[in-house]
């Protein structure tokens, strides 16, 4: 069933503590697409990602994500989605190795897979036996990304994925996303970077909790004078 690979939102509203963080948002995304979410602060990007992850519930409207109906299927959606938000989901008192070992156990994947992911993000060396509490911002991010890659989700939900990552890490992550979408995964990337989407993928401008009508073209995220 091809619909099972796609994402379709119809008039979804999500209220957080009474505030409509998403408002009548409709959106169709096909398998293999990369969607760059852009828009001013408070537009609802993070809320959209959390809804896609099954972490927030639609108050009105309905959606179908990878064959899972929302609201209702949040729990099964969570298993499919891979989310990388501003919080790392790591246990500060555990070492890098122990955190990723937990991921291995919960994902029921082989440990060589975890090792490879850790190797890929350069956290197998000195950091491997360090507590997460003692890592730099970008190092934490790398550990979290290693866990995400090990999960290899069908839905990548990345909230400002480049933040804290150095250039090599950004590059690596971009490649991983490209590779995953090539294999049919869908990626949502919330970002404020001006160059997002230049290399391909769809740019969706959000504002006021919904998708900005395509009319106005690019530049929705840029301020009055535009950047660059």
């Amino acid at each position, binding site marked *: 069933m091809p619909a099972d690979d796609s994402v379709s939102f119809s008039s979804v509203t999500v209220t957080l503590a009474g505030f409509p963080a998403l408002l009548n948002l409709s959106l169709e995304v096909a398998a293999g697409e990369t969607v760059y979410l852009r828009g001013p602060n408070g537009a609802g990007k993070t809320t959209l990602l959390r809804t896609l992850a099954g972490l927030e519930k639609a108050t009105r409207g309905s959606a179908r994500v990878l064959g899972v109906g929302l609201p209702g299927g949040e*729990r099964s959606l969570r298993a499919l989605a891979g989310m990388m938000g501003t*919080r790392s989901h790591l*246990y500060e008192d555990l070492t890098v190795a122990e955190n990723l070992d937990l991921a291995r*156990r*919960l994902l029921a994947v082989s440990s060589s897979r975890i090792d490879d992911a850790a190797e890929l993000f350069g956290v197998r060396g000195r950091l491997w036996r360090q507590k997460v509490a003692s890592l730099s911002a970008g190092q934490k991010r790398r550990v979290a990304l290693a866990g995400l890659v090990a999960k290899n989700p069908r839905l990548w939900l990345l909230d400002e994925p480049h933040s804290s990552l150095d250039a090599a890490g950004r590059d690596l992550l971009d490649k991983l996303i490209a590779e995953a979408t090539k294999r049919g995964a869908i990626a949502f990337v919330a970002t404020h970077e001006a160059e997002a989407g230049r290399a391909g993928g769809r740019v969706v401008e959000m504002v006021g909790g919904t998708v900005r009508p395509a009319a106005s073209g690019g530049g929705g995220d840029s301020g009055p004078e535009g950047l660059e």
Partner: protein
Amino acid sequence: MIRRAWAVARKDMLIEYHSRVALNQVIPFALAVLLTFGFALDTRDQLLAEIAPGLFWVVVLFSSLYLIARSFRVERENAAMEGLVLYGIDPMAIFLGKLAALAVQMLVLEAVAAAGIVILFNPPVGSLGLLAISALAATLAIGSIGLVYGALSSSEHSGESLLPLLVIPVLAPIVISAAKCWSDAESAGAGIYDPWLKIVSIFGAVFLAVGAAGFGPAMED
């Protein structure tokens, strides 16, 4: 599910292994409380021996509150609980895993506190078996209810001192029954047919079931 529950329990035990919060902080705390109580309440030995069982369970309850709060604090730090949820695992696995780790810590705490109580307050100890069974049942009850209310009150902000308020009234009956159990254990005749033990066990089973049923809804808002 058992595998995942074990992974969760293992993680909580590892955190304790690294941070030694239960061992170096909560258990000595329990001893400090026993001392303060003994001193602050009164100085007549007879009286203290009488209230010792009640005191034991009160101290265990209070110290357990710190263990439960800690159990949720580690999940809150980087929204780690959200991470667990995102593995799509059954809340039941999280519940069982966290309960197992918590129960182990609580049992150690109870052993130390009991030794302290016996030395300091000198209450008669009768049937050890009766004591052990009632302690196990009460531990499961306190742990289960603590975890459910912990999940209920775990918001990003201002939730931490809500836990004791919610938990104490609910657990008051079981703590009282467990104390009565000890008092009964003192009289040699008491065995596993003790009526208070029955009550404690029933409470234990009921609260365990309530916990298992309530944790999922409490956690997944």
